[in-house]
C-alpha cells in the first residue's frame, strides 16, 4: 500500500531511463549563430532549429552572437528568447563586427554543450541536416562532421554557371594542392566536439573562406577524424551574393599560404 518516497523515486528513475532519449542524452549541442544584420532571417532559422531539435529529442541551445547589428537583430533575438526560453536561446552580443574566428571563441566560452554546431544564419544552411550530422558523428565517433555540397546528393540552389565553375575549379585546385581528405573545404556547416573546435580555432590564422579551409587542414594535421554529410545549400533567400575578383584573389593567396605552411 504505502511505497516509500525512496521506492517511488527509484521507480520514476527506471521509467525515465527506459526512454531512449533520456538514456543517452548527456550530449548537448550548442549551435553558434554569429549574426550581422539578420533581423529577417534570425527568427526563421531559430524556428527551424527549434523544430528539428525538438523532433529529434536532442538537448540543445542556440547561442546568438550579434556584432552590434544596426538593424535591430538583437531586439528580435530578445523577443525569441521570451518565446523559447533563455535556456534555449542564449544571447552573447558584441559591440561591433569583429570577425568569425573571434565569434567562435566567444561562443565557445559560453557554450554549455559538449558539441558545437557552426552554421550560417542566413538560411543557406538548413537545420534539417543537423540530426544527420549527429547521427554520423555517433556512427563513427568523429571529431568533426562537415557538410558537403560536392558529394552524394549534396548540392546548391541559386548558382549560375559562372559561380558553379568558380566553385568547382577552386575546389579542384584545393584538392590537388592540399589533398585534404574532405570534399568541401570552404563550407561552414559543421559539427565539432567542443574541445576539438577550441584547439583548432586557437591555431588558425586565416580569414573568410580560407579560415574554414584551414580548420579542416589543421584538423587533419592533429589527427582528428572527419565525417561528411551531403547538404543542400540554398543561396541567399534575401539579398545578393556576388563572388568578385577580389575574393578570388584573396582565396588564392590564402590557399598558397596554406600550401606553403602546412
Amino acid at each position, binding site marked *: 500500500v504505502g511505497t516509500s518516497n525512496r521506492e517511488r523515486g527509484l521507480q520514476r528513475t527506471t521509467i525515465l531511463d527506459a526512454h531512449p532519449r533520456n538514456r543517452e542524452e548527456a550530449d548537448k549541442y550548442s549551435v553558434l549563430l554569429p549574426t550581422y544584420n539578420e533581423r529577417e532571417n534570425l*527568427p*526563421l532559422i531559430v524556428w527551424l532549429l527549434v523544430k528539428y531539435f525538438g523532433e529529434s529529442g536532442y538537448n540543445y541551445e542556440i547561442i546568438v552572437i550579434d556584432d552590434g547589428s544596426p538593424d535591430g537583430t538583437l531586439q528580435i533575438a530578445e523577443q525569441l528568447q521570451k518565446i523559447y526560453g533563455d535556456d534555449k536561446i542564449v544571447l552573447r552580443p558584441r559591440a561591433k563586427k569583429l570577425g568569425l574566428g573571434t565569434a567562435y571563441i566567444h561562443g565557445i566560452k559560453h557554450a554549455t554543450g559538449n558539441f558545437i554546431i557552426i552554421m550560417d544564419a542566413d538560411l543557406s544552411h538548413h537545420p534539417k541536416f543537423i540530426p544527420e550530422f549527429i547521427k554520423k558523428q555517433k556512427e563513427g565517433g568523429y571529431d568533426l562532421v562537415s557538410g558537403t555540397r560536392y558529394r552524394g546528393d549534396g548540392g546548391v540552389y541559386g548558382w549560375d554557371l559562372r559561380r558553379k565553375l568558380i566553385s568547382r*575549379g577552386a575546389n579542384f585546385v584545393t584538392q590537388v594542392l592540399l589533398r585534404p581528405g574532405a570534399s568541401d573545404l570552404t563550407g561552414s556547416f559543421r559539427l565539432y566536439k567542443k574541445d576539438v573546435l577550441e584547439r583548432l580555432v586557437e591555431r588558425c590564422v586565416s580569414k573568410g573562406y580560407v579560415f574554414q579551409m584551414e580548420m579542416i587542414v589543421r584538423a587533419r594535421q592533429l589527427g582528428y577524424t572527419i565525417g561528411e554529410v551531403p547538404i*543542400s545549400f540554398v543561396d541567399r533567400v534575401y539579398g545578393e551574393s556576388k563572388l568578385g575578383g577580389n575574393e578570388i584573389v584573396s582565396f588564392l593567396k590564402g590557399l598558397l599560404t596554406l600550401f606553403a605552411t602546412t
Partner: protein
Amino acid sequence: MTKLLEWLLGVSLVGVAWGLVTFDLLDLQLPAAYKEVAWPMPVYLLVVFGCYSLATIGYRVATFNDCEEAAKELQAQIQEAKDDLKKKGLKM
C-alpha cells in the same frame, strides 16, 4: 613536411629520373628508344594533367546538383514559420 616541400621533393625526384634517362647522365648506354620516349615526357604529362583537370571540372560542374526541392521546401517553411511566430507573439 609541408605540402610545398612534398611537391618539391616529388618534382625533384621525377626531374632527376628524367634527366638521367634523357641525357644519359650515368652513362648507362640505354637504348635510343628510352631516350626518345623520356625526352617529351614532362610536357606530355603536363598536357595530360591539363586535360584531366578540364574534364574533371567540366564533369563536376555539369553534374552539380541543383536543389530545386530544397528551395521550394524552404520557401514553404518560411511561411509556416512566420505564421507560427506571429501566433506566438513575435513582432517582425
